[in-house]
């Protein structure tokens, strides 16, 4: 009887290990090529670790390429998007959580609809609208577009956090003479801080990853976000794998940091219909 559970346990652990290996291998390879000096990259073939590691690619990328600018642009865009979306979504999420009002059903339906239809069909009209306003090739234009794309899902996410807070709290405050908005700001919002942090994280990662609209809307190098910069780098200097992968590792860092932040809320985020699958 003892032998079978032990066998099962070994099978279970090896299956988990296989999954971990599959999940991490591409990222490991990215890091490996990024630290392989150029002379070893081609001579040593596909070794698991180079005989000599160096940070020369990172050094080059940080000091002699435009990647720090791309990185800064992406930080600005993703950070502002995350902050604005979280403010708007906590207001609208609060409305959905606490009020019953005429048109609520249509508001929810509209927000669900925006999660379902192909965003790629907005690429051309949005370009046409933003172009005369001077908002193409501008980080502001990108922030506006990303904010709109992320508000619906963030609203549902914030709503789920508000739903978890008992209504009695603000009712008590309102009996004490506070208006509902004061109760919302001073009592409910502080209690939702973890939810706010999670929403910030989800929206930041979504904005950090967005590709198609930044490709379409941004053309100049000084306004390019990280994905645009990386892709143009790939097509221009497609020989220097070490530098590209060093840049890739840089793009991974904020994503991983925010992943740690939102890890506990993944389920809630995904069921709220996270834009970034």
């Amino acid at each position: 009887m003892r032998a079978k559970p032990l066998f099962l346990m070994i099978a279970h652990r090896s299956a988990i290990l296989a999954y971990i290996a599959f999940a991490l291998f591409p990222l490991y390879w990215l890091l490996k090529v990024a630290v392989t000096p150029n002379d070893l990259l081609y001579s040593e073939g596909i070794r698991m670790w180079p005989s000599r590691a160096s940070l020369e690619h990172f050094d080059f990328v940080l000091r002699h390429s435009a990647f720090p600018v791309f990185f800064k642009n992406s930080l600005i865009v993703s950070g502002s998007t995350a902050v604005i979306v979280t403010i708007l979504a906590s207001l609208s999420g609060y409305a959905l959580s606490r009020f019953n009002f005429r048109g609520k059903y249509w508001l929810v339906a509209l927000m669900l609809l925006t999660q379902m239809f192909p965003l790629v069909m907005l690429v051309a009209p949005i370009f046409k609208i933003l172009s005369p306003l001077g908002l193409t090739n501008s980080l502001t234009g990108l922030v506006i577009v990303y904010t709109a794309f992320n508000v619906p899902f963030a609203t549902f996410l914030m709503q789920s956090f508000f739903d978890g807070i008992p209504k009695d709290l603000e009712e008590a405050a309102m009996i004490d003479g506070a208006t509902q908005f004061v109760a919302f700001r001073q009592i409910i919002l502080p209690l939702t801080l973890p939810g706010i942090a999670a929403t910030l994280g989800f929206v930041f990662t979504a904005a950090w990853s967005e590709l198609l609209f930044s490709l379409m809307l941004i053309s100049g190098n000084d306004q390019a976000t990280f994905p645009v910069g990386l892709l143009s780098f790939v097509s221009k200097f497609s020989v220097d794998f070490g530098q590209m992968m060093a840049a890739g590792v840089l793009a991974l860092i904020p994503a991983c940091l925010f992943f740690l932040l939102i890890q506990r809320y993944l389920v809630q985020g995904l069921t709220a219909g996270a834009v970034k699958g």
Partner: protein
Amino acid sequence: MDHVARQSGLPAGRTPLKKRIADGAAPYLYSAPALILIVTVMLVPLVLGVSYAFRDIQLLNPFSGAYIGLDHFRALAEDQAFYRALRNTLWWTGASVFFQFVFGLILALLLDKPFYGRGLAQALVFLPWAVPSFLAGLNWAWLFNPVVGPLPHWLYALGIMSEPNNILSDPQLAMWGPIIANVWWGIPFFAITLLAALQAIPRDLYEAASIDGAGPVQRFLSITLPFLAPTIAITILLRTVWISNFADLIIVMTNGGPADRTQIVASYIFTQAFKRLDFGYASAIALVLLALLLAYSMLIVILRQWLLSKD
């Protein structure tokens, strides 16, 4: 008066008119900023995009813009590249969803019971979800590249490939590149959702079943699967729509090539708008895609009604 009414919590009928209006407007004020933004940045362009489908709109041609009726759709009906993209979309979506679901379900089952180091294992296997899609695409494109990537050499060593080539440039195999990247990237999504559903199953059901002598397979088939079924159905349906619209990986890895073998409808729309700057034709294709997705959703709703009425 206002103050007194609120202090004593009198019934709503006694509150002054001004406050009643303010209370009635509150939910609209809370949701107005979000709503205005969604309408102006998503709904208006959507309607505009529909109108583009019937117009000749080319970004670089200042004389374009005239209404041309159904010309785009006539062109589309003859467009072999579009039909190929339609077939590729089915293949891309079907294979991606299938493998993401199967591997995601296995992973969720593996992570369901507590074991030493589960938290860490969970964080590591879910990490691909956090990788930006453009980076996931580039990363896998590099893995498939025989110059820096190990995969062609391994496939060659295993005798699967006759020489270490890049499968992304092989018309027969190219679609597998984005599909594999997509599976890698999407397994966590299914695993996270299914794991949450698994953990919501009451544990005493399993105990009761094993006291009654049910084996593990029987317990899986008669408890786990029925409980998971609604989550599985909803997740697969939503993911199908989402993945068929998901062009990032393809645009990054193959850009639709070689010879349009990996072009899906979503990436075809983007190519028309981004490379050819033919906004009218791109919008016409987008409208067809939207109609197909609507038809698919309707089909699901009808199917669900039919299943419910059968019980």
